[in-house]
């Protein structure tokens, strides 16, 4: 067979979240330590496809990414048509932990980016002993808003276009065009109001500045990596957060932006592989 078929497999799992049945899509590749990946606000799990195609990762990790309800190929729960979608800390934690239990993941390493990077801090604080480690990409305990989210969902501005154009500058300046535009395509495809609803969590319901000092990194190691071009979660935000977590590791990734795993996979690889090696060593 001449065609190249990737080793990624996708399936659906039914979860009860917030008391409602949710049909949740997930993809995975590899064998070994479960590495559960959480996508950014207003996008979906495809952001992790490069890790899932990297044998240096999948030889040692079972890489899994699920689309939150409302995102990617996960449908919104029945009755969504009259809801205003708003992600909360409680709902996000419930989604991650319910998914992990549904797949019988044994102390997964949870790696999230942006809002996914925010929630791994709460997961480490509240569920640390159930996790192998957390890796926060573009993660901080709080964010200072830098635009009015009302622009993201209104009839006189195209939602997909404006979401992508707003975040376009969060991609690092050196990122290859191919990966820059695929990253932005994810934002263009987001359902109406979904990015805005995710930002309710990110902006309003996730001030963890008082929470992170309670993380026990002996139970759940914390690794934070942030791109130098990220002005949403700035390097200073991440370093400030790491300074409050005893034992946390933090690194600034030169030339990367807010979507390291999808905007510039080759550059990201240089930073994430050593972290994954340390995660393996700690678990051995």
């Amino acid at each position: 067979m001449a065609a190249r078929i990737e080793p990624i497999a996708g399936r659906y799992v039914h979860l009860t979240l917030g008391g409602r049945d949710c049909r949740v899509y997930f993809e995975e590749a590899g064998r070994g330590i479960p590495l559960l990946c959480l996508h950014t606000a207003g996008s979906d799990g495809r952001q992790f496809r490069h890790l899932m195609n990297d044998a240096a990762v999948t030889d040692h990790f079972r890489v899994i990414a699920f689309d939150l309800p409302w995102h990617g190929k996960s449908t919104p729960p029945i009755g969504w048509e009259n809801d205003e979608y708003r992600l909360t800390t409680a709902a996000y934690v419930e989604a991650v932990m319910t998914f992990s239990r549904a797949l019988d993941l044994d102390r997964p390493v949870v790696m999230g980016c942006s809002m996914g990077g925010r929630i791994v801090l709460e997961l480490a604080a509240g569920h640390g002993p159930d996790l192998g480690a957390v890796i926060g990409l573009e993660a901080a305990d709080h964010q200072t808003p830098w635009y009015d989210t009302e622009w993201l969902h209104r009839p006189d501005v195209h939602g997909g276009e404006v979401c992508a154009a707003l975040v376009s500058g969060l991609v690092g300046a050196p990122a290859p065009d191919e990966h820059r535009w695929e990253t932005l395509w994810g934002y263009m495809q987001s359902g109406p109001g979904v990015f805005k609803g995710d930002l309710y969590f990110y902006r309003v319901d996730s001030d963890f500045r008082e929470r992170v000092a309670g993380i026990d990194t002996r139970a759940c190691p914390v690794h934070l990596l942030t791109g130098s071009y990220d002005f949403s979660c700035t390097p200073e935000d991440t370093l400030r957060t790491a300074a409050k977590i005893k034992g946390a590791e933090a690194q600034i990734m030169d030339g990367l932006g807010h979507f390291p795993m999808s905007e510039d996979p080759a550059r990201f690889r240089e930073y994430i592989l050593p972290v994954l090696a340390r995660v393996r060593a700690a678990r051995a």
Partner: protein
Amino acid sequence: MIERLVELVNADEALVRRGRFLTTDFLVEVGETPYHVSVERGRMASVTRRPVLMRPWRFAIRAAEDAWLEFWQPVPRPGYHDLFALTRFGRARIEGDLQPLMANLRYIKEVLEAPRRLARSA
């Protein structure tokens, strides 16, 4: 740099097509110097230096000259690489009626970034 927007934008067919629903006037301030930018269905009609009395504009983007020069580097450094990076760190201000800006955000950002091509081809 900004005076070259007419030729830079109009030579870029894809960019003109992206702006085809936009006809507006906006102001770009480079330090103390205002430039009236006039767009007609995605084409740059004119870029006029200095204030034009009684000519209205829908929105204005203002930044110091050194901030714009950093912004127009072929690979700008962090914090100067995007319109909203400039505003987030207080290096630029956006004022006026933002609806035409937000409804055509990719177009406007790419128009403002067009002078980067001059440095690349130099």
